[in-house]
């Protein structure tokens, strides 16, 4: 290779830094996954212990309860994997597919809630939309804020590009986890409520996650 094509040797600054090389603990994606799941579970676990499951729980069709819980759980697992776990042999999860997954899953969960909600006549309660929406959204926010903050601390440095897509997927996963716990805990029914307040938590989480990682990236670039 002729001189004008050959790279320079390591600079003095780089060599000085490398000279101080010490062993480091490398990343294990499963560890971040477990920590984020644990953070997501804090508020639901507390609420379940305090209040127990929803009042109409026993009157709801078992198949629907189990089936919808499985859908929520799969959404959580899929979104967290997209945002946290790289493909085999890679260092980073891919950002653009993670963002797409967040958008797709959020829309699907809202649509599912609007279309497939089942209530127990005589047992399920109803609230005016705005009141019910705020009731569940403030609960979801407790989960979203904790998980997104944890994700930023654990993974904020991982992506050279800032990881906005990963942030969106993790936030949407937190929202899906909120939806799963609301499926068990929320005493209020109606497709509009479940679709927009429970499913909407995934949308809100995706936006919060993306926004938080974007702001962090902008601050790092200053």
């Amino acid at each position, binding site marked *: *290779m002729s001189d*004008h*094509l*050959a*790279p*320079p040797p*390591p*600079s003095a*600054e*780089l060599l000085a*830094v*490398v*000279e101080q*090389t*010490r*062993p*480091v*603990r*490398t*990343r*294990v*994606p499963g560890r971040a996954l477990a920590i984020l799941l644990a953070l997501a579970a804090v508020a639901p676990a507390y609420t379940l212990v305090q209040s127990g499951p929803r009042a109409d729980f026993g009157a709801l069709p078992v198949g629907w309860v189990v089936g919808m819980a499985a859908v929520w759980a799969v959404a959580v697992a899929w979104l967290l994997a997209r945002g946290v776990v*790289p493909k085999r*042999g*890679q*260092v*980073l999860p*891919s*950002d*653009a*597919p993670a963002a*797409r997954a967040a958008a797709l899953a959020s829309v699907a969960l809202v649509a599912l809630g609007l279309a497939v909600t089942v209530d127990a006549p005589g047992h399920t309660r109803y609230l005016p939309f705005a009141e019910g929406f705020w009731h569940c959204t403030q609960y979801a926010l407790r989960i979203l804020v904790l998980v997104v903050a944890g994700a930023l601390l654990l993974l904020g*440095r*991982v992506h*050279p*590009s800032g990881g906005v897509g990963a942030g969106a997927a993790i936030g949407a996963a937190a929202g899906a986890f909120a939806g799963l716990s609301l499926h068990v805990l929320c005493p209020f029914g109606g497709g509009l409520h479940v679709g927009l307040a429970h499913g909407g938590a995934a949308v809100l989480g995706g936006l919060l996650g993306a926004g938080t990682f974007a702001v962090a990236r902008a601050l790092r*670039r200053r």
Partner: protein
Amino acid sequence: MVGLAPEVNVAGVGDETSGPDDAELMRRYCAGDRDAFHALYRRLAPRLFGYLRSLVGDRTAAEDLLQLTFLKLHRSRDVYVIGADPVPWLYTIAHRCALDERRRRKRDRVTVTKDGELPREPAVDLRGAPADRTPAPELGPAAMAGLDRLPANQREALLLTKVHGHSVATAAAIAGTTPGAIKLRAHRAYVTLRKLLPTMTETTEPAASTKEQP
């Protein structure tokens, strides 16, 4: 197509095809082995340097960016996942460094040399090509000039897939976009270069003929 060799390995000098692979060297580096860093540098710096020079078009800037890339690699060793291929990750770091440099250049009103002088404009010969433009590995002068006229995202897509031999998926991960976008950009780059290169080849060939230049 003039000057472009598909799937070219531009590792050049220092490419060690025997011995531990890149993932094993990276593992040792994370374990505190300084020699592993030097082996990684010898093996990967030529490729990254070629990529950076193609992106920023300036040897001095590319040298600085190369050092910055390896410095960021050193500081990000805790991000590495044991067993993973570090090469696409390193390309991603280099790519982001180049993008940040481009942003910084747009913000700066005046760029001065180390002596505080305004930079000398590169000389232009009568054929219209900058005198200090040196070709990237395996790329002829006409191809380099053509690449310069492509939009940045198309140039990146073409460099990553056709010059540096990355898969579409890996190139998408490095550039922070989708495989579909990379394919589209690379295709558009090819179409544009096909139109540009026949005319550019005429103007960048040595003026051996008696034909007058415009």
